[in-house]
């Protein structure tokens, strides 16, 4: 039996602990050890980005990391986007409204890359969106509606942000 080591990772806000072999890929840890199958494996060559998750605030391809590297870190997967009450994240709304998916296989990766993009650049141009998702391949949509979905989300989040500021202003 190969040697295992104990790792602790915060996943979607919850502390998770497991004994894993060093060679266990992060994507297999997420999908099999944690049973979070929203993160997908789309290739064998680290190209497609379907496995994208947010680790310590940055997007990474979870198929190109070992679980042990994430020890002590914080991960957000697609399952962590909606609120605990079940309200869809603005991005999920956007993908729904703008038909930003067909088969849905690339979608979790697209969502996580877009999430990180909007976090660092809340008002991206179309070109910036295309650059932002350039590590995620889609075989179905031709990307056009994915771009629209991200624009939809950006607008929604900006509106929510300014409404919150307004409310704050009134309260003051």
């Amino acid at each position, binding site marked *: 039996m190969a040697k295992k080591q104990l790792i602790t990772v915060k996943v979607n806000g919850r502390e998770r602990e497991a004994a894993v072999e*060093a060679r266990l890929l992060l994507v297999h840890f997420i999908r099999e050890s944690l049973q979070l199958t929203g993160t997908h494996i789309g290739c064998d060559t680290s190209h497609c980005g379907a496995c994208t998750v947010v680790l310590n605030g940055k997007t990474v391809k979870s198929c190109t990391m070992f679980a*042990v590297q994430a020890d002590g870190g914080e991960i957000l997967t697609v399952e962590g986007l909606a609120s605990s009450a079940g309200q869809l994240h603005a991005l999920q709304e956007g993908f729904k409204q703008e038909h930003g998916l067909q088969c849905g296989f690339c979608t979790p990766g697209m969502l996580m890359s877009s999430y990180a993009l909007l976090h660092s650049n809340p008002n991206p141009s179309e070109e910036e969106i295309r650059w932002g998702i350039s590590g995620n391949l889609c075989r179905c949509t031709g990307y056009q509606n994915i771009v629209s979905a991200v624009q939809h989300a950006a607008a929604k989040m900006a509106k929510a942000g300014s409404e919150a500021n307004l409310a704050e202003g009134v309260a003051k």
Partner: protein
Amino acid sequence: MIPPTFEYLRPKTIPEAITLLQQHGEDAKILSGGQSLIPMMKLRLARPGYLIDINRISGLSYIKEEGGFLKIGGLTREAELEASPLIREKYPILIDTAQVIADPQVRNLATVAGNLAHGDPANDHPATMRALGAQVVATGAGGERIIPIEEFFLSLFSTALEPGEILTEIRIPLPPPRSGGAYFKLERKVGDFATAAVAAQMTLDGKGVVNKVGIGLTNVGPTPIRAQKAEDFLRGKKLDEANMRQAAQLAADEAQPSSDLRGPAEYKKGLIKELTKRALARAAERAAK
């Protein structure tokens, strides 16, 4: 798709890491960004028995100008280079290069040092570092050793790093005034290796005559190629249309591409010629600013 079993070690300091490297010799590999190494391990093309993860070692991630050099720490990520105001303002050739490496997810983990240490002529930074006349700092049991980039790339996947050494810093001599550089890469799709790419760095004098020039070629040989004949031709000349064209032809002649899925060798030579022209023109533009 699953690597063979290996032992995972996570030293807290560089001396600890070096001790581990010495202990396990050729059976150990440094795990930094891992964006080249891990895909190779998944295909079982690389089968280290020991992985030494240096990502938690502090003090290795920095970008600073000091002592006549731009110094880039061994753990500096491509994404950090891209986002650095200093690099954006003063070293656009490095932005050109970082931006076309793989994709955003890979760039969050991939390190500039790793891009050099891996020894792959298809990587982008090697040609740029050759054009810039950089040097690297190799840290081993005996301390630090400075390796000029000219002596660094030996052959395919083989560099001058000894088994017990870690690439801890990259040093680029501060360019004199009226200097500029650019990197142009043609790839089939985002994330691909270069079909061909060219890095050009130059310093002009007050009259627009080329004082210093470095031209590096990506993925057209077993190592990144320095287009020395093109450089020798340009030195001391004014950078006009005719001179740029001739230099570009000389660079294309110095390229040694192989025919493969990315195209026939003749096509790649033609690419080198065109990309050299564009890189020289952009570098001159930036030098004149």
